[in-house]
């Protein structure tokens, strides 16, 4: 409608607050970003910064205690926030955006054969018969590198890496244009992790899928990232191209986060960020990182707007 057609996804001021008996938790607080077709954005942040809530908000998988859920999400030009729940379920979830949840390999149903589980979304969302859906299952298994005869196996008969691939096949089977990957490799071994990253890259090349990769593993995320979004205390504090971001992050938090990564091929000594992220229940006014920031100055008590620096955007007064 309003956005340009090349942009696959455009999020404007997305807000998701939860009600608890202690007060409101501002898990996602005014998130903006956009993503092009066949691009991958990595959302990086520490635990508790609202990464998973962001994925829940995108897929509208909301718990009951939602306090505020607002903003605009355009998927291929369509404002999906305007849809009611049933329309959203029919037209967006799985068909437009699918999710590989955190610890997906343990999210498979233990009493169903993996083939049936992968076929299910295709049968429900694409209206295929079981035989037709199985045709797709075999195709997807080939894409993710699972032997075809595994369709008749149960999850416990597969290794962790294979189960992760099955979960990925399940997200792919309806050919969505966007897949949200929530920590897809965090519970896996090193070599398996590298394998899954290879699979994700290959699928991106072959099927033209876009990804939102949500993770705290900065080193592994660089394997897939075209763009990076840094999340801190419910807000996106920096977005930019991966090629610009990794060598020289702009926001002090991004800089310290990058400096905290132990590196195999460099002699630099990693640092750590002192202090803790603020509670999302009652976040400080002004910049939310100010309390831990070595560069803070008077201005930081006011909330910084997002400054545009070339193609990059950063929410910090230093870049005014």
């Amino acid at each position, binding site marked *: 409608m309003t956005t340009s057609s090349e942009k696959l996804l455009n999020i404007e001021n997305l807000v998701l607050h939860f009600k608890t008996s202690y007060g409101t938790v501002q898990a996602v607080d005014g998130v903006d970003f956009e993503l092009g077709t066949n691009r*991958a954005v990595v959302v990086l942040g*520490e*635990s508790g910064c609202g990464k998973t809530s962001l994925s829940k908000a995108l897929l509208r998988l909301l718990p009951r205690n939602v306090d505020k859920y607002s903003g605009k999400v355009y998927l291929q030009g369509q404002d999906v926030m305007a849809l009611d729940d049933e329309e959203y379920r029919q037209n967006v979830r799985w068909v437009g955006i699918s999710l590989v949840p955190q610890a997906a390999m343990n999210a498979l149903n233990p009493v169903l054969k993996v083939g049936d589980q992968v076929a299910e979304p295709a049968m429900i969302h694409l209206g295929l018969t079981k035989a037709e859906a199985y045709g797709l299952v075999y195709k997807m298994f080939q894409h993710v590198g699972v032997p075809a005869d595994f369709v008749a196996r149960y999850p416990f008969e597969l*290794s962790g*890496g294979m189960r992760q691939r099955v979960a990925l096949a399940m997200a792919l089977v309806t050919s969505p244009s966007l897949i949200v990957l929530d920590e897809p490799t965090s519970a896996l*071994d*090193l*070599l*398996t*992790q*590298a*394998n899954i*990253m*290879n699979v994700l*890259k*290959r699928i991106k090349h072959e099927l033209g899928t876009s990804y939102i990769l949500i993770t*705290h*593993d*900065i*080193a*592994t*995320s*660089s*394997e*897939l*990232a*075209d763009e990076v979004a840094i999340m801190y205390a419910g807000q996106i504090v920096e977005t930019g*191209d*991966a*090629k610009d*971001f*990794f*060598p020289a992050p702009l926001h*002090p938090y991004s*800089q*310290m*986060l*990058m*400096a*905290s*990564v*132990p*590196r*195999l*091929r*460099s002699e*630099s*000594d*990693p*640092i*750590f*960020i002192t202090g*803790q992220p603020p509670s999302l229940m009652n976040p400080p006014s002004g910049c939310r990182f100010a309390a831990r920031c*070595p*560069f803070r100055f008077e201005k930081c008590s006011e909330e910084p707007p997002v400054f545009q620096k070339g193609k990059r955007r950063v929410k910090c007064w230093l870049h005014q």
Partner: protein
Amino acid sequence: MNTDMITELRKVNNMAVEFNEPRETLLSIRDLHVWYELRRFGFGHAGYVKAVDNVSFEMAEGETVAVVGESGCGKSSLMKTILGLNIPTSGEVVFKGKNLAKLNTKGLRDYRFEIGYVQQDPYGALPPFMTVQQILEEPLIIKGVRDKEERLEKIRKAMDEVKLYPADDFLPKFPHMLSGGQQQRVVIARAMILSPKLIVADEPVSMLDASVRVEILKLMKALQEKYHLSVIYITHDLSTVKYFSARIFVMYAGNLIEKADTRQLLENPLHPYTTALLAATSDPDARNADSFKEVPPGEPPSLANPPKGCRFHPRCAKAIAGLCDEKEPVDFEPIPEHFVACWLYQPK
């Protein structure tokens, strides 16, 4: 400007990666085998899971060693045997000249006072119904520190060591009231409270956030240097190893396949499996997205029925037919102090 600041921060929490000169042997493991019996219908013998197979190494007092390997390679079985929780099928664990298998109950108890254990998941390792004070007091009570004041003093000292202060704020708290980093500090304080000689740390930072991870590693390193502790650091993350350990042991399918000085191993890995592990470890770099990683095909073998010969040979691109699939490799030393169990390095 910002780069300067980061350099400055580095100086503030800088810790030189220097390693103490090793002294006398503290722990030596000789031909250790830990096999678990498989039973059919509860009693019929159905083979063994060979979790640790023919492992030998020595550790000096004050030395730090990292055991690197994937899940299911036998790291935890090795660690549990060192902690005296598993009984070895054959072979010996000798700590300060005493063979663990020959110790009586009292001897084993005294042995356990000398080793500390830092678990992987701090939340799972701390009893949820005990306060920090109770958690830290328990080992002291078991050791027989009768005086309550003395116990409290030791607890405060331990909490100070792990930088949990003010201690009085933390003493009445339950584990769920602490952040992940704070929980891991309590676990470290508990492991340290009896002033052990040896610490076994099983993936101590893998459950923590990136920014906290470095902090905990540095804390452990500082304690190791201060008290001249020996530490066995079990991990799958090669990028953290060089900040912590002087030597690396690489484990694959129950065998130690490569043993070398940390720097030497990271710069010049010999075993094809070690090379693959290093190649699969990413550094944050946008160029990574343009290429695929080389990963050996297949998965680690079942330890109940490991392949004949070298256990890595079905996945190894350099496997020599007729040798690697027939004979189990022995330790070769192509470079002084760098041991590798691979036929490629057989002296000509």
